[in-house]
């Protein structure tokens, strides 16, 4: 049977599955919130605004582990249901070989990983176009790191002391009638504090962004590299979810193990190595573990020089450390590919041996 027919069969199964579209829509919604808030008003912890030609790199940086999680959830669901409904059995009875069923399912996982990469990048493009058309300018003022700088903290203290002093002075020098008015304001320490914070924010050092270039292409070569890297990482998480789903054949089990490993176990391995081995050993091994290895290529900084330059310009204007990116191709591309190979091969060997 041709690859095209296998894809056709999986397409028919997937496009009519409401849960697939719900997961995709939810991802689109969260992407819009994450990137839209950049444009709409800025929020704490946001690294820098979305302005083409940097929007895709920004999108990849913004999304964090969320798409990987949604992707894993969707793939687990699409795979395990074939076992709980016994349709995997029926597909083989109807004439697919186990190898063909496996191939079809892995192709499906690849397509879903692609869809889950396209969606956040499409949202980023949309938000950027919106920004260009409406002339909305970035308003977030925080630097790449989310913690306020020491200069910022000093400014806040000074502003607070200053506004309190002013308020007290007003009270002291006011006439009676004024005093009633002022005391309403001054007696409320909350109000004073709020005012102080507002003042402090106004005095906070503003990040200096290189001016946006309205003539820049919406998508550059660097952007495409960011996209490809993000897809590679996603494919890796897809392979991990695919393996768990094919081997455990239970939705709860596969999602549980994925979450546990993704959020917890890999860090645990690092801690245990540090504890019972050495820090040196931990530093050597941990970057090669799947979650770290697969998140490597999803970091936009390793692909997009212009983006890194821009981040560094912002960092410099705030007196912060430069962003560095380790662009070791073996680690960024070879390692994820190796993990994908391992996951898919192990799954294939076990799947072929087991009864359906």
């Amino acid at each position, binding site marked *: 049977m041709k690859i095209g027919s296998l894809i*056709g069969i999986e397409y028919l*199964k997937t496009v*009519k599955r409401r849960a697939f579209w719900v997961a995709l829509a939810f991802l689109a919604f969260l992407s819009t919130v994450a990137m839209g808030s950049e444009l709409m008003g800025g929020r704490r912890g946001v690294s820098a605004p979305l302005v083409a030609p940097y929007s895709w790199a920004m999108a990849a940086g913004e999304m964090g582990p969320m798409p990987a999680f949604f992707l894993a959830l969707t793939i687990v669901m699409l795979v395990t249901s074939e076992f709980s409904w016994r349709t995997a059995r*029926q*597909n083989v009875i*109807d004439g697919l070989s186990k190898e063909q069923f496996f191939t079809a399912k892995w192709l499906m996982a690849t397509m879903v990983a692609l869809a889950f990469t396209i969606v956040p990048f499409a949202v980023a493009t949309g938000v950027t176009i919106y920004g260009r058309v409406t002339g909305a300018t970035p308003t977030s003022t925080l630097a790449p790191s989310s913690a306020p700088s020491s200069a910022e903290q000093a400014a806040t203290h000074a502003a607070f002391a200053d506004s309190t002093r002013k308020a007290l002075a007003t009270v002291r020098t006011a006439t009676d009638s004024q005093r009633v008015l002022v005391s309403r304001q001054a007696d409320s320490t909350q109000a004073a504090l709020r005012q102080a914070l507002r003042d402090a924010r106004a005095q906070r050092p503003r990040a200096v962004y290189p001016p946006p270039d309205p003539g820049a292409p919406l998508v550059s070569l660097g952007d495409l590299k960011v996209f490809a890297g993000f897809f590679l990482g996603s494919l890796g998480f897809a392979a991990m979810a695919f393996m768990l789903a094919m081997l455990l054949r239970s939705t709860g089990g596969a999602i549980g193990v994925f979450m546990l490993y993704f959020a917890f176990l890999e860090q645990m391995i690092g801690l245990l190595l540090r504890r019972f081995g050495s820090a040196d050993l931990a530093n050597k091994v941990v970057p090669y573990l799947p979650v770290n290895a697969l998140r490597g290529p999803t970091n936009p900084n390793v692909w997009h020089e212009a983006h890194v330059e821009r981040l560094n310009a912002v960092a410099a204007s705030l007196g912060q450390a430069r962003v560095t990116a380790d662009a070791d191709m073996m680690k960024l591309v070879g390692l994820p590919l190796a993990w994908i190979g391992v996951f898919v091969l192990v799954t294939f060997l076990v799947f072929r041996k087991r009864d359906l």
Partner: protein
Amino acid sequence: MTILETSGLTKRYGRLTAVDHVSLSVEKGQVFGFLGPNGSGKTTTIGMLLGIITPSGGAFRMFGRDGGDELHAARRRIGATLETPNFYPYLSGRDNLRVAARIKGVAEDRIGEALDIVGLTGRQKDAFRKYSLGMKQRLALAATMLGDPELIILDEPANGLDPEGMREVREIILALAARGATIFLSSHLLNEVERTCTHVAILRSGKVVRQSAVRDLVAGATVASVASDDLAALRRIVAEYPAATGTEERGDRLFVHLADDDLASLNRFAHERGVTFSHLAVEKRTLEDVFIEATAKDAVGGAA
């Protein structure tokens, strides 16, 4: 022509031997009933034939081919269900058949015809999950007949159907057989099997204990019910009768198991020896009698 042939087919689950050296032979055009009590290994046997359970031992041939890719290609010429109807609950009946048709490489314009035969045309757009059990079974039948397969394998096709549904399923199966398909079906509905099947194999604890044409199974097991004024003389001459394989006494009747169904000869034999029957009737044994006898706990090994 032998469509399906197994020799020594065996499946072990740990210490349990679910299927124990099963050797079957199904010829073209037969409607073959595969009988056995719950847990006797029917589904496991069919699962091995369909390539979803790996045999622990033995071999089988389909359409004269065995092993690997060839066998896999042979499976395209088969329509089959295993245990329950297995479909995508969120897809409509028609879309489920489209998935099956694409896998089988059958043109999608054959779907309408299959839906028509099983009487689901009116509900084809409804999601499978909204179907009643009977409708699900009928959709499974529709899927098996896509692409006019030469062999149709059905695992308990009438499971959970009402009498009307059973009759419909029986008619569909007979219609498929009339079109030239060979049918292999497992069941424990003996009445149904007796009415639809030409041949049967009876399985007990994974072993085949009987295998023959339905006609022979039932006919070869004629029981004559006789009575006479002189019961003692009756017992004596029946014991001497060469074709008698056993007797039972109930009231004033003697039930004589015969190796043939020649009552006249029995009558002549008694008459020549001066015993006159006051009653002579044939009690045709049903498949159920044969089945119960063959699968009874003490029928060790079975005399197939």
